[in-house]
Structure formats: C-alpha cells, structure tokens
C-alpha cells in the first residue's frame, strides 16, 4: 500500500491544475490578497495535503478548486482547470451541476454543516437525487452501503436520525458518505478531524482513508496538523500567507523539510520544560462530585492535589468533565459532595460564598479569547477593571500598573487604546493573561488556552506562561486535550474520562509509563510525525484485539 503512495495511480492529463492563482478577500473596507499566485497539480486518485496556519489561504484554495469563491472573496488571476474544463469561465449553472457530484466537499464542523432540520439520509442523497443521477431508492441503498463502509453503527437505521442525535465523529463519517454518494473524482477535505477528540480522530481518519483509496478518489486534504496530513497524503504542500512555501512527497517532507517555516510547524512538539521540584499542597480536592441542573452528574468522586508554583495538567477528551472541574474550582458550578481546601482553608462552594480576596486569588483564562473579551472595551479598560475591582487602584497608580502588565505580556503601551477586534488571536490571548494577572492571583486556571491558536503562537503563549510562572511563582491548573501541550508544560498530570479520574502522577510517570488502558489509548491516538503511524497503530490494535479474543 505504501509503495504506491508516492506515485500517481493513473497517468495522463492531471485531474486538477491550478496555475498562478490569485484571490483577494474583503475586510476592513478594502481588498487584501489572500492567495498570491499558487500553482497546484493533482493527478487522478492522488491525495494532496495542504498545510498551513490560519489565514494561510488553504481553505480558500480548496474552495477555488470547486470553482467557488467564498462570500467576500474574489478571484483576481490565474487559472483552474478541472478535467479539461476551465472552472473560472464556466457558467454558474454548469459549475453547480459539477459540485457535489464530480467535486465534493467535507467541512470542518460537521455539526454546523448538516442542516438541523433534516434527517441524515435525506441530506446524504440530496445531490444525487436533485441532480437526477440516481433514483431515491437506489441513492438510499448506496448511502447505507457507504455508512457501513465508514463503520457507522447500525448503518441501515442511522440515516433516519437527525444531526443532533448522533455524535461528532459519526457526523463526520456521515459527511464523508455524503461526499462519496455521487462517486466524485475529487473530494476537498477541509480540516475534517480538527474538531474531533484524538481517539475518535484515529477511527475517522482510518475509515476516510480506506474509502478514498477503495474508490480511487483524488483528494485535497487541508489541515494545520502535519502529523494528520502525513497519514492521508501522497504529497504535501505547505502554504504560508497565500504562498506555497514548500512542496514534496510526504516522506521526503517529514524526513528533510527544506524551509525553517515547515520545521516550525511542529515546534510545540519539540518544546519541553524541565520538571520543577516538589512543593507543598496549594489546592487539594477530595471526593468531589458535581454537575448541572441537579440531575446531570459530570464529576464523580474526583480527588487530586495541586502543588504550589507548579503546573498540574488535566487531560481528557470532550465530555470528560475537565472544564466542569475548572468551573467548580472557580466557583461557577456548585459542589455536590466532597471538599476543596485552598491555601489551608476550606474553599466555599460557589463564588457567592467567597470573599473578594478569595475570588482574587483564583483567576481563569479561557479557550476562546474572542468571546472572553468584551469587543467594545479597550485593552486598557479590560486590564484596568480587575485592578480597580480587586485592588482598588485608581488614577495614575492604576495606569502605571496597566502598562506594567502590558510589558509583562510583551506587548507594550502602544496597545492601550486598541479594541480586541484590532488584535491578532495570540495578542488577544495575551490580554486575557494580563487580565488574569492583574488580580495578583496565586492560582490560575487555564482552560484550553492554546487550542484555538496556531502552532507557532501556541509555543509563544506557552513560553510566556512559563516565564510568568517562574517570575511570579503562580500555580497553574492547565486544562487541555492536547498531549503535546502537556508534554511541554506540565509537572503533574491528571487523566480524566467520563467524569472520573483515570490516572494521576508526575509527567514522566503518566506519559512514559501509563498504568491504565484508557491512558494508553489516549496517548497512542496522538498522531505522530510518521506516515506509517496510522497503518501501524491500526495493525497493532487489531493484533491486540485478536490476542484479547484468544
């Protein structure tokens, strides 16, 4: 299988050829170039990986291959030829009939891309039926067959469900089935597994790869994660700021990346902090249970200890209860049973029972800086508010402190009057950090603070957090689903699953010698920079399953 991977399976004219493509996007009242002259060539049955950070133009490029410019985008130059047809000059009606049937699209968020009002099966067969390619019954039979191939449970019945009735991983498979329904020549996968948990991602990736190979469908696989792309693609193209930086067959790209930029894409994976020495207990949690609305139990008998001045990473997948745990510590969600001891005193359940000084000592930084910052407040107001509220600073003293904090987050006083909308994602997260630090906390809860950021920015934010910890001696409770982040910053690690604590210990103990099956599964599901990783993992797991059966 791997031998054929590096070369196209069919000779002849390329399926898709893009030459000198230029696309402009409209923002801030003017047109900016998004794609600045990209050449791309895709053979039949070949899978090309497109990789780059947000804003690199990879999604735009993927959509242009379908002859589609997003609203607010315009194609200003170059050519797109698909199967001998000039996609930029075809009439809209002809393009429409090609979309969905000859070129299909798999979107990042399946939950948002399925219409909540219609059943999965109806949406899956829609294009085939509307374009008159298949009758309803035949189309439905074909969809059910594809559901089965993609290993959706109860393939015959799942199509009658509504999107909200199935899980994210299942939706992503259903969307792949939808794309495959008309047996297209080309599928654009736009970050299809980015929103999924790692253990789900492995399964979805494996089934997608299998189906695409079986039908010899060409694909453009867009992702920001090089390790994921490496499992799917024959060839990889790295995009940056709308320019193709590097292009090579997958193995060559991983073995000997030519540009500094490509190497920097896995910088977080290379980062690793020296473990800090053990200290006394800062926060201890004993037998904690909690949940929502008095009936939905999310946390079940959780006990852990956080040491002063160190970083405790809480790792788990969505639904594991890790974010709820953060909210219980911060007092947003009440305790059902069990107790929390913070700095030698029992921590009251719920923020209403806590003194202002206690509130000040525990601060939070959130996943999405876009929603955590009031878009109408300037940076100065955002950082100044906790200074007034917690510390009672006024006038010059307050202003001086705001500038000090801006210096601490390496931004400087020129940002005082900016609004969040005028900052980049990384800068916004820095402002969130400064806002938390303004209260002079002793414990900071970081809830997925780097998940929404690009790799390079992630590295910078993690380094900043580490520097601040060394200077100020703050304790971090770091909630994340990303093992690379844990490896980079944690001293102690707690693994959670289904509201329960699965395993805890020092970073080395948990990551190097995991004792629990779930921890093993979680760690082994993290994609590695090796094109054979997925194949090997699947073989291992199958072998394991057979061994277990015997």
């Amino acid at each position, binding site marked *: 299988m791997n031998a054929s991977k590096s070369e196209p399976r069919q000779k002849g004219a390329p399926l898709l050829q893009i030459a000198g493509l230029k696309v402009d996007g409209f923002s801030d009242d003017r047109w900016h170039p998004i794609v600045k002259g990209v050449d791309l060539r895709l053979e039949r049955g070949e899978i090309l990986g497109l990789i780059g950070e947000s804003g690199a133009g990879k999604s735009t490029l993927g*959509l242009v291959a*379908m002859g*589609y410019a*997003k609203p607010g985008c315009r194609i200003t130059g170059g050519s797109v030829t698909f199967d001998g047809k000039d996609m930029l000059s075809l009439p809209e009606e002809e393009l*429409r*009939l*090609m*979309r*969905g*049937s000859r070129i*299909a*699209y798999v*979107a990042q*968020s399946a939950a*948002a*891309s*399925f*219409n*909540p*009002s*219609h059943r999965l099966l109806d949406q899956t067969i*829609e*294009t085939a039926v*509307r*374009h008159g390619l298949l009758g309803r019954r035949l189309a439905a039979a074909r969809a059910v067959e594809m559901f089965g191939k993609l*290993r959706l*449970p*109860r393939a015959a*019945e*799942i*199509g*009658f*469900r*509504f999107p*909200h*009735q*199935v*899980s994210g*991983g*299942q939706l992503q498979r259903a969307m792949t089935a*939808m794309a495959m329904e008309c047996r297209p020549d080309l599928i654009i996968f736009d970050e299809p597994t980015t929103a999924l*948990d790692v*253990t*789900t991602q492995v*399964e979805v990736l494996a089934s997608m790869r299998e189906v695409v190979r079986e039908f010899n469908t060409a694909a453009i696989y867009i992702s920001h994660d090089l390790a994921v792309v490496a499992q799917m693609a024959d060839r990889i193209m790295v995009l940056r700021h709308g320019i193709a930086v590097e292009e090579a067959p997958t193995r060559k790209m991983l073995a000997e990346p030519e540009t500094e930029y490509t190497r920097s894409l896995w910088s977080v994976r290379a980062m690793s902090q020296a473990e800090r020495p053990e200290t006394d207990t800062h926060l201890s949690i004993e037998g904690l249970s909690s949940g929502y609305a008095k009936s939905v139990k999310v946390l079940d008998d959780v006990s852990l200890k956080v040491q002063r001045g160190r970083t405790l990473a809480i790792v788990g*997948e969505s639904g594991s209860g890790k974010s709820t745990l953060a909210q219980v510590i911060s007092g947003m969600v009440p305790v059902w049973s069990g107790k929390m001891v913070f700095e030698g005193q029992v921590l009251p359940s719920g923020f209403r029972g806590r003194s202002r000084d206690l509130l000040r000592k525990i601060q939070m930084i959130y996943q999405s800086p876009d929603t955590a910052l009031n878009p109408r407040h300037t940076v100065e107001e955002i950082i100044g508010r906790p200074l007034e509220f917690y510390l009672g600073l006024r006038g010059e003293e307050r202003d001086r402190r705001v500038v000090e904090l801006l210096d601490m987050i390496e931004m400087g006083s020129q940002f005082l009057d900016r609004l969040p909308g005028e900052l980049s994602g990384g800068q916004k997260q820095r402002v969130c950090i400064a806002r938390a630090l303004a209260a002079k906390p002793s414990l900071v809860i970081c809830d997925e603070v780097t998940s929404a950021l690009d790799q390079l920015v992630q590295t910078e934010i993690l380094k900043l957090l580490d520097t601040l910890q060394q200077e100020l001696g703050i304790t971090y409770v770091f909630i994340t689903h990303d093992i690379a982040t844990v490896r980079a910053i944690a001293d102690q690690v707690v693994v959670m699953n289904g509201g329960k604590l699965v395993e805890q210990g020092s970073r080395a103990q948990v990551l190097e010698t995991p004792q629990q099956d779930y921890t093993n*599964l979680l760690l082994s599901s993290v994609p590695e920079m090796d094109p054979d990783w997925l194949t090997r993992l*699947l073989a291992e*797991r*199958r072998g394991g*399953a057979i061994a277990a059966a015997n």
Partner: protein
Amino acid sequence: MTDVAEVPGRTGPGRQRAIVPLLGTVLQRLGLGLVTLFMVSIVIYLSIEALPGDFAQSILGRSASPETVEAYRQMLGFDRPPIERYLSWMAGAVHGDFGSSLTSRPGAVRAVSAIIGPRLYNTFFLAAMTAIIAVPLAILLGALTALYRGSFFDRAVNGLTLMTISVPEFFIAYILCYLVISKDMFAMTQLGQLLPSWLSSGIGSVLSLMPKLPTLAAINESTTIGERIWKLLLPSLTLTLVIIAHMMRMTRAVLINVLASPYIEMGRLKGLSSAWIVFKHALPNAWAPIATVVAFNLAYLIVGVVVVEVVFVYPGIGQLMVDAVRSRDMPVVQACALIFAATYIVLNLVADVIAIVTNPRLMYSR
C-alpha cells in the same frame, strides 16, 4: 473495530416520535394561558369598577328620580358587593354566558353572547380572509427578497411595504376607495387634470382594468358567502397592506440570518439551486420567529381593526366594543376585552407549538 469515544446507546430505533413531551409542553402553556386570562379578567373588572360615575344614573339620565335609579341598580345587581358580582360574572363567562346587556329592557333581555356572536363571526371572517392572502404573500416576498438581497426587486418590495405600513390604515382604505371610485373617470378628477394628459389617460386605462370593488361592506344575515367575500375584498386588501410589511421583513431578516449558516454554504457546495436552498434548507429553520410575528399580526386582525371597520361600515367586533363603551354597556365591553385577551393567548400558544414542532431538536430526543 468500534468507536471508542462514541456511546453505542445513542443509536436507538430509527423513526421514533416524541409526541408525549410535546403534549406536556402544550398543556403546560395552555394552563399558563388560563392563569393569564384569569388575571386579565381581574384587571378588566377592576378597571371598569374604577370608572367614575354611576352607570344607572348615566343611563337613565339626570332627570331620573333617585327611586328609579335605585330600582334600576337593584335590577342590574349593582347593590351586591364587587367580589360577588365578579365571581358570578366569571362563573357565567366560563360557560360562555357573559350576562345580559345594559340595553336590555324588561321583557326584552339581550344576552351579551347573542350580541357578540354574529359580530365575532364577522371579525373572524375578515381576519381569516386577510390572513389567507397576507401570510403566504408575506412569507413568499420575504423569501424572495432574502434570496435576491440587495437587488432592485428587494429594494422595491422593501420600500413599498415600508410605505404601506407607515401610512395610517384609514388612509390606505380611503386611497383604495378613491382608486375604485375614480377608476372610470380618473381623467376628470382634480388630480387627473393636474397631470399631463398622456399620464392621466395612461393611469385611467390601467385603473379601468380594475374590477369595480364595493367600497361598502355592509352585510346582514341574508348575505351569501360569495357576496360576503366580494364585499370584503377591499377591506382585506387594506389590512393586507397594513400587516404585510412586518411579517415580510421578519421573514427576510430571519432568512438572511439563516442563510449565513455553514449548512447553507454546504448546500451550495453540494450543487443545490438557490431556490431549493432557501425553501428547503433555510425556511424550515426560520419558522419559529416567523410564527411569532404572524401570530402577533393575526391577533391585530381580530382586536385592532376597528378603524378599517368604520371606514367600510363593516359590523365587526371592534365597532361593537366602541359603541358599547360609548353607551356604557359594560357587560359587552368586559366580554369583548376578555375575548381579545384570549385571542392573543391562543395565537401565541399556536406560535409556540409551531416553534416546537418545526424544531427536531425539541421534537426528537437524542
């Protein structure tokens, strides 16, 4: 190999309906509606009690002797305490008996329900006729303007409907009447004289195509259904012009919001046509807010059309209430007010049910 992170229990039988939670919600809303109605009835009763002056005195006139007034008061039951009167009124109202009108005379008792009944039927008839024209038209126009947003068509429809909603309803009614009346002699009218002759003759010939609609909607028991519809065309056209803008603009706004969803872009990338996307993918996700606005406007058609009734001399319930207020016929006023309140409550209940029924997330559990 199975999914690790996916819960197998979620995949139950394919087509299962969740009617029971729906029924529960409807019953709950209905109960709340009754509570609201009860409170409204108290408010209505108290506010009428609080009116200054003495009913018996004002009906009999200043010249009536105190004995006559007292006797009349006793006949009407005004000598009993207010709570007792309220309770007996409510007890009757629950059975559809709103008491007797103050215009009753000994030997000729006029039940309020008998007075209101035919008027209410007339009002419902006009409201239904208007709704049948206005609601589909508004939703269609809303969908089309959302689809062709920013086009000339969009701007023209928006401008026209905005104009009709801005003009007082009696004025629209009079303009329509004017057009009908002057249709065959537009060139002779003052406006026709002012305009250049080619324009006025052009307008005249367009107007002459219009049917000669009746400008009076006077009807009685012997009016046939067909005649009734014919006579009500102009009033319902007037009301259509009044209510269409609100519903159309809401439809347009909601649809534009929905059209920005990722699943709409997905529809385009699946090669679906624009009309299909709007009607099949966007509209089903927009029913809830549209239903709320439609319910609001239908309620207006029943409780707020007195001015249009007056212009077209149509015997609806609005005129009845105004007359009853003027003649201090309080039982009729109370009954009308209670019916109006019930109308709002019932229509909003229907809108709530539509919001639930059209949302699979509420209809089907996980």
